[in-house]
């Protein structure tokens, strides 16, 4: 009896995931074109957030370079979109991001904490202004047109990247490298002591995770049709993955997925309903989430599973107060 319950639980989650994936793949046949585009942008945010969380989640190195990888992907599509088939453009977009991540990794991963965050953010601005200078002085333009692709194609490509990034995140998390990343986050010096090649593990993971951000940028660019450096290197793509992942919960793979899905949908619905105040409402929701959901949505779900939601919330509040006293 018990064993039956156990095995059915074991197959429940993968089963649900496959059903969700089938529903997602077939959705263009039963939902409106607008909703397909909304789903595409939700998937895009999930891809960027999960990629960010692969490296920054366990190690605690807050990378703000996502917008740089994203922008590099976008410009790859803008420059190569006319001369190469879509598949190549997307793969090259990812690979250029990887090269950028390797360079950044070699230079910066000995920086810690705040310094790493600031440097990676500086990278976004550096690339943006370099490109701006280049476009104005060398090519004599400001923006570029991107060959557009059918929105359903964009949707399907995004699903492929989405599945790939989830699989990668899962495999890394459940390999010895996942544990190694976590030990680096907890005690980098001790990790070095016991023979983990800390620098290599960090740089490799950083580079792998950037691939997906770059390729997501390359495909989404085809939907935007016109890009300039300000659009491509918008710092919002550095901050959103951080906020979304923290909101969803960093400890689990599904945290960033949930957080990104929730936020992307929220953003869209707030923009349409409150075009002038949506940033304000957005900000308030964020503040509340950070104050009262220290473990994110996933933490909340776990509390709810354990007991009632309300007692979970009470416990959370008590914990916070206790924490304050200790401080």
């Amino acid at each position, binding site marked *: 009896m018990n064993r039956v319950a156990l095995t059915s639980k074991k197959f429940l989650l993968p089963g649900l995931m496959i059903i969700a994936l089938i529903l997602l793949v077939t959705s263009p046949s039963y939902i409106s074109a607008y909703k397909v585009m909304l789903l595409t942008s939700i998937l895009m945010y999930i891809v960027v957030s999960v990629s960010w969380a692969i490296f920054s989640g366990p190690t605690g190195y807050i990378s703000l370079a996502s917008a740089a990888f994203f922008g590099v992907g976008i410009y790859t599509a803008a420059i190569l979109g006319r001369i190469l088939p879509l598949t190549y453009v997307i793969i090259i977009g990812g690979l250029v991001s990887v090269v950028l991540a390797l360079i950044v990794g070699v230079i910066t991963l000995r920086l810690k904490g705040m310094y790493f965050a600031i440097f990676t953010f500086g990278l976004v601005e550096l690339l943006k202004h370099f490109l701006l200078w280049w476009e104005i002085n060398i090519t004599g333009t400001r923006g570029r047109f991107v060959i557009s692709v059918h929105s359903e194609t964009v949707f399907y490509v995004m699903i492929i990247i989405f599945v790939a990034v989830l699989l990668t995140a899962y495999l890394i998390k459940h390999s010895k490298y996942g544990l*190694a990343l976590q030990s680096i986050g907890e005690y980098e*010096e*001790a990790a070095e002591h*016991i*023979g983990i090649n800390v620098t290599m593990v960090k740089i490799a993971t950083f580079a792998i995770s950037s691939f997906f951000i770059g390729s997501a940028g390359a495909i989404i660019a085809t939907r935007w049709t016109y890009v300039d450096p300000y659009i491509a290197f918008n710092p919002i793509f550095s901050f959103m993955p951080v906020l979304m992942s923290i909101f969803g919960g960093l400890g689990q793979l599904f945290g960033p997925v949930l957080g990104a899905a929730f936020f992307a949908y929220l953003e869209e619905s707030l923009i349409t309903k409150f075009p002038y105040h949506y940033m304000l409402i957005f900000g308030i929701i964020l503040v509340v989430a950070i104050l009262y959901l220290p473990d994110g949505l996933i933490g909340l779900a776990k509390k709810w599973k354990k007991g009632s939601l309300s007692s979970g919330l009470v416990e959370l509040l008590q914990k916070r107060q206790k924490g304050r006293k200790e401080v």
Partner: protein
Amino acid sequence: MLELNNINTFYGKVQSLWDVSLQINEGEIVALVGGNGAGKSTLLNTICRLILPASGSVTFLGRKTDGLSPHAIVELGISHVPESGRVFPELTVLENLEMGAFLSHAWKVKNETIKQVYELFPRLQERERQLARTLSGGERQMLAMGRGLMSRPKLCMFDEPSYGLAPNLVLEVFRIVRLLRDQGITILLVEQNVRHTLEVADRAYVLENGRMVLEGACCELAASDYVRKAYLGL
């Protein structure tokens, strides 16, 4: 097995090791004793290349370790159990041990090594699934020692393993050090507990203010007036 020749190490402009030489033969327990700030931990960190010496050489198994990175030193067969353990608090006991076997050759035999570690420290097996931060100080030290053994080292360096432990646990730590030697692991033991250390070790070095001031067989040192006065309070 391990040879240090005229090592000079600096922190910025401050010199912390002066012309230090040391030699360890296979199968020995060598003790390194000295007060706070004598440079004992600096010496261990220099051996495993977390700190780079300004001059002098380190040779392990006939091979100079110049230019190697810390993980390559572990790969050569030197394991360093740092001061106060430094276990990973949010990983379980088992995960901590697994991380000790991160190197590919050790990873292949990790389950076997874990079994051996559990034989040495049955307590760890009982706590296998617990987070390391929930362990007591003594258990953490055992976990750190166990983790250090997971890379299957030839030479194990323990940095003050008895520090802060209850007296009966101190004896247990020294018993295990001796047991490890009997299993064929060479040991460099850094300690402030001079009395017990001199009982367990074969030879000892005394480090003061970054300089080696004495060396010799433990029985000789324990009998010398200098050590009796300065370290044993006799």
